[in-house]
C-alpha cells in the first residue's frame, strides 16, 4: 500500500488533493482532545471566552493516551470513537480547525462542516495504540491538566499512519467501502 507523506500544519492545497481512501503518514504537531476537553472548549465558546489553545489550522486527535513507561514519550495512544464529539465538531471547524484524527462514522452536520470549511477527517486504526505510540515522539500537556488522560496534549508526530476517511468534497470512505463489500 502506497502512503502519502503529509507535513503539518496541513496546507489548503494539500487538503484539496486528498481523496477518501488515501493512506497517509502525518508528521508535525497535533493536539489531543476527547469528550471532557471538547465539553470545556464548547463551554468556552458559549461564554465567549478565548480558548486556552490556538486550534486555527491545526489538527485534533481524539485520544486519551495510557501513561508512559519510563523512557517512553507516551503510552499506548490509539484513536477513540469520533461520534461522541459530533456535537462539538462543526463549531470547531467553523472556528478554523483544519482536520481531525479519530475512528468511526460522523453525522451529516460534521460532514457538511468539513465540506464548508475545506477540512479533512482522518481515520486511524482503532486498537493499534501500541504501534501508533511509536510515531509520537513528544507529548506535553497544554491545558486542562486536571482531566488526566483527557487533558489537551501537544503531540509531535513522525509518520503517523492514517487513512483519509472524509475528504473536503464530502466523500466518506466508511460509507463507500462498506457498499463495495456488502453482500447482504
Amino acid at each position: 500500500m502506497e502512503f502519502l507523506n503529509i507535513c503539518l500544519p496541513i496546507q489548503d492545497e494539500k487538503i484539496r488533493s486528498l481523496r477518501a481512501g488515501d493512506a497517509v503518514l502525518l508528521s508535525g504537531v497535533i493536539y489531543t482532545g476527547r469528550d471532557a476537553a471538547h465539553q470545556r472548549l464548547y463551554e468556552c465558546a458559549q461564554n465567549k471566552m478565548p480558548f486556552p489553545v490556538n486550534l486555527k489550522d491545526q489538527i485534533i486527535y481524539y485520544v486519551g493516551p495510557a501513561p508512559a513507561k519510563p523512557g517512553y514519550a507516551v503510552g499506548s495512544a490509539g484513536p477513540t470513537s469520533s461520534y461522541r464529539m459530533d456535537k462539538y465538531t462543526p463549531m470547531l471547524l467553523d472556528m478554523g480547525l483544519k482536520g481531525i484524527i479519530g475512528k468511526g462514522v460522523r453525522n451529516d452536520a460534521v460532514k457538511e462542516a468539513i465540506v464548508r470549511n475545506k477540512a479533512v477527517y482522518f481515520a486511524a486504526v482503532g486498537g493499534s495504540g501500541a504501534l501508533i505510540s511509536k510515531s509520537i515522539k513528544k507529548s506535553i500537556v497544554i491545558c486542562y491538566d486536571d482531566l488526566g488522560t483527557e487533558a489537551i496534549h501537544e503531540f509531535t508526530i513522525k509518520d503517523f499512519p492514517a487513512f483519509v476517511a472524509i475528504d473536503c468534497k464530502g466523500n466518506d470512505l466508511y460509507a463507500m467501502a462498506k457498499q463495495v463489500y456488502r453482500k447482504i
Partner: protein
Amino acid sequence: MREIHISEITRKVKQLFLKASYHIPSDVLAALESGKCKDKSPIGVAVLGQLCDNNYLAADESIPICQDTGVAILFIEYGQEVCTVGGTFHDAVNEGVRQAYSDGYLRKTVIYDPLFDRRNTRDNTPAIIHTKIVPGTQVKIDAIPRGFGGENMSQVKILVPADGLEGVKKFILRAVDEAGPNACPPVVVGVGIGGDLELACEYAKRATFRGCNSHNSNPEYANLEKELLAEINKLGIGAAGLGGTTTALAVNIEYYPTHIASIPVAVNICCHAARHASSII
C-alpha cells in the same frame, strides 16, 4: 475447608490484568492472521496487518495493546469449601486491580458517578465483579480489561415467542451492523439468549471470552453461531470499519431456560483484541 490468604488473590488479580492488557489470546491472534490472508479488501489486509504488528509489539515491550485498558471486569468461580483469610475477598480483588493499573502503566478509566461526579477515581477501582459459588476447593478467576468502544455499541432486547429464531437473527445482525466501525472490528460477538434481562447480558459478556475456536456444545446453537458469523462477514464493514470481508472473528452464543412469554437476547460486542486472562488458585 481450604484457606486462601487475600495476598494470594491480590497477586493473582494483578498478574492477570497485566497479562491480559499486554498479551492478546493466541486464538484471537490466529483469527486475525487468518483474516489478513483471506480478506478481499486491500485496506482490510493493511489494517489487519497493522493490528497483528501492534499485538506483537505490545507483547514484546510489555505495553498495553490499546490505550483503553478499560474497566476491570472479573468473573469468579468460588469453591464453596474455600475460606478467604486476612481480609475481605472484594477488597483483595480491588487491590489487585489498583496495583495492576498503577504499576503496569495502564490507563485509569473509571469515574465516580456517571451523572453527577465524573471525576476519575485515579486507580481504576471499583472493579465489576461477578461471583458464582461452585463445588470444590478452588477459585477460578477470569480477568477482562474491557474497553468501551464495543460496550457502548452493545444491545439488549426482550423479544417475544412470535419473533422466533428469525427475530433473534435479525436483532443480532442489526446490532453488529449498527455498531459498524465504532466497536473496533473485526469484533467478537457474544450473545446471551434466555434467562431474564440481566442474565442474558451476563451470558453475552461471558460468551465474548469463550475463545475464537469454540462452539456451543448444543449442535443447534453451534450451527446458529456458524450461520451468523457468515452473515456478519457479508455486512461489508470490515477491519476498522474501512470495508472488507472480516467484520467478526467469532460469534459465541450461550443460552439458559426462560419464561413462556419471552426470548431475552443480549448482544455484547467486543473489539478485535478480546482481552482476557484466566487462572485457578
